[in-house]
């Protein structure tokens, strides 16, 4: 008389014993069972969109689970609140299960498809990317002796544009294909509503606008009016704030480069003064990119391992390290740009930036793409 309990992974076969031996179907099956249990309970519905989206469904196919997994912001509310969390025999640990499903979805959307392997070995991926970046920037370097702060004497502007143009196009294409695969899979069956839940359409802002605000404010890390927990009954804003530092720091650095490119096009050639727009944007952004990733790395050390699957943690660790290396070498380059070892620093910095770009489609960076897509789908379903 225990059909479900025998179908559920037992504590012996469950993840905390043998994480690496889970096959895709096992993970999906565990996620499906968890959503079935959650859907019969629904006490977590006010916590986040995952449970609200779940309630619109009666069955959970891989597509639904992929969508829900990418909607999950990986806080801890539902785990600590759950009476069915381990050691209960139902063994419900939604954050970690969805974390695993998420990484598997990153793999399955990767383009080219064989690059899925990159997600399984984040450090190998990082080192390969660093090696490629180092080779390219070393070859591109014309001299290692320069006394003024003119980067283009080391690597000519056109060469830089060509390198980043080619890499940038490839990265953009890989991300676009991944996003397309995600939308195709997660939207396969279109927005769903279960027949027994009937509610009138809700007027409100457009889904696209809501989803953008969700991303820019990280609304669902404090949607109940308080910050989500990252340990039992511990509500701290750090994860959200540090993510903001990282996200906006990166955005400012990107803006700095864009402004510099515009200046260059109009004939105003670098180096720019410390008070110029590109340098100010880059410096503030760079500081954000130091504080954010460094803080997140420190938080991760103290984070409850029950919340995140090891595979996702490793991706985060690699990505944050690369961001930190980028910002630290960038700021060093700025501070020491008139010193004799500027060319060496420049080549190192460019190698790291190249490696960062190359790993964008094959690492933690993609979480933003798929989370954004999932949030848009959520807001669309909500507006129906």
């Amino acid at each position, binding site marked *: 008389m225990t059909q479900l309990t025998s179908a559920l992974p037992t504590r012996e076969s469950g993840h905390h014993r043998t994480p690496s031996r889970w096959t895709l179907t096992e993970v999906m099956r565990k996620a499906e069972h968890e959503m079935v249990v959650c859907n019969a309970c629904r006490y977590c519905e006010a916590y986040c969109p995952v449970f609200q989206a779940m309630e619109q469904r009666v069955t959970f196919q891989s597509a639904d689970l992929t969508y829900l997994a990418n909607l999950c912001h990986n806080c801890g509310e539902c785990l600590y609140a759950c*009476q069915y969390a381990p050691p209960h025999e139902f063994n419900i640990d939604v954050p970690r299960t969805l974390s695993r499903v998420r990484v598997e979805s990153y793999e399955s959307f990767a383009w080219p498809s064989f690059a899925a392997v990159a997600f399984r070995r984040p450090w190998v991926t990082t080192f390969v990317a660093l090696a490629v970046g180092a080779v390219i920037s070393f070859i591109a370097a014309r001299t290692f002796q320069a006394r003024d702060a003119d980067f283009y004497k080391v690597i000519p502007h056109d060469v830089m544009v060509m390198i980043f143009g080619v890499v940038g196009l490839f990265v953009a294409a890989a991300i676009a294909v991944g996003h397309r695969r995600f939308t195709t899979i997660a939207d396969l069956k279109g927005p769903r509503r279960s027949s027994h839940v009937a509610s009138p359409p809700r007027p409100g802002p457009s889904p696209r606008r809501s989803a953008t605000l969700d991303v820019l404010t990280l609304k669902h890390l404090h949607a109940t009016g308080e910050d989500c927990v990252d340990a039992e009954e511990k509500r701290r804003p750090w994860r959200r704030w540090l993510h903001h530092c990282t996200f906006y720091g990166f955005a400012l650095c990107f803006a700095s480069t864009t402004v510099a490119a515009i200046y260059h096009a109009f004939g105003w050639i670098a180096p720019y003064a410390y008070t110029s727009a590109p340098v100010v944007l880059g410096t503030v952004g760079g500081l954000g990119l130091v504080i954010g990733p460094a803080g997140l790395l420190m938080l991760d050390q103290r984070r409850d391992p029950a919340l995140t699957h090891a595979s996702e943690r490793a991706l985060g660790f690699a990505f944050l390290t690369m961001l930190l290396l980028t910002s630290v070498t960038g700021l060093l380059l700025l501070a020491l740009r008139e010193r004799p070892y500027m060319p060496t620093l420049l080549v190192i910095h460019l190698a790291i930036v190249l490696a960062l770009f190359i790993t964008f489609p094959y690492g933690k960076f993609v979480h933003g793409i798929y989370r954004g897509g999932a949030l848009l789908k959520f807001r669309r379903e909500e507006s129906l």
Partner: protein
Amino acid sequence: MHAAPTDVLTDTYPEDEFMADLLRVTGGLTDQTLASMMIRASADLPRRMSRFGVRFQPSLRGTLHLGRTNAFFLGGGKALMNSAYAAAERLGVRIVYEADVVGLCIRDGRFESAEVQTPHGTESIAGRTVVLAAGGFESNLDWLAEIWGEAASNFIIRGTPYNTGTVLRLMLDAGAEPVGDPSQCHAVAIDARAPKFDGGIVTRLDSVPLGIVVNRHGDRFYDEGEDYWPKRYAIWGRLVAQQPDQIAYSIIDAKAVGRFMPSVFPPIVAGSIRELGSALGIPAGTLAATIERFNAAVRPGTFDHQTLDDCRTEGLVPNKTHWAQRLDAPPFHAYPLRPGITFTYLGVKVDEHARVVMKGGLADNIFAAGEIMAGNILGRGYVAGVGMTIGTVFGEIAGRESAAFRLGVR
């Protein structure tokens, strides 16, 4: 109760209505002085609880439509307990886990010490005052068997396996005045495949009013459409407990699929009634005859799950008085049902200071809160959420009064 809409409750729930609800479900088996104390104290409860980090759902979207009378905890009961424990720890309260009270030393109505068993051995803990908050005896299978005999072995306990009633039994043996119906427990019909303990909310099944329920002989035994399910699910535990082997089967056809809250256990599916009968291990002929008679007795009507509609049977014993539709659209789905015990009513009598009443008079320094004294107010029956209200209000009173006693204020 609340006199005006709040952030977590709609409309109003006046004191009189709350009391009327309580008198109705308990059949008068309630201490009205304590009951009105509790009802009045409940008005401001959400605010008082939120000071300890307890959070409530902003609005209820669930299926029970209880937004007027019930505030729901954000994240449920365990989230509530997490907040309460964290608040206690912040106040410097020492919490000892895996500790079982196995003995109480009480002399002339005065508590002296408790014998506590921990993984490190048994120790005696003395105290100038004590608050007993040790629950009922619903997970004590032997005690249940004393009352219900062999049937008790087929009961499923919805909550923790730790409600063994040890402290309740110790108090009754020490001369505490009992209160509440000792022969009753709150039992709902839940999915028979639920774990023996701690299956909680997800094992409930809402399909009953949409079909028929038969026992293991294949016979119907009660009006499945008597009233809205949230008002009736609590009597079905007893109904199933009275059936042979304490098992019954809720049977629906394709028309009802997807019309009730998703169930955690998959339905048993069959293409025909006979097939279903053999899948369930009940006499297929009887089941087919039962359903044939039921189908023939269904009167024409307009089905509406949201109202007490006019779809009913005529000439059946028992009739189904609402939502009666012919079971004729395969595939047929069945869910097995067993009694799921939520709580027991027997407890210790207390006064308005939550102080335990002993046979020889008031106890000196013994207070009680929660299920162990809930029988003072809820001698039988159930009003949604009243257990939490009793627990919280009398928890506050017992804490305050025992502190006052300890400090010699009273």
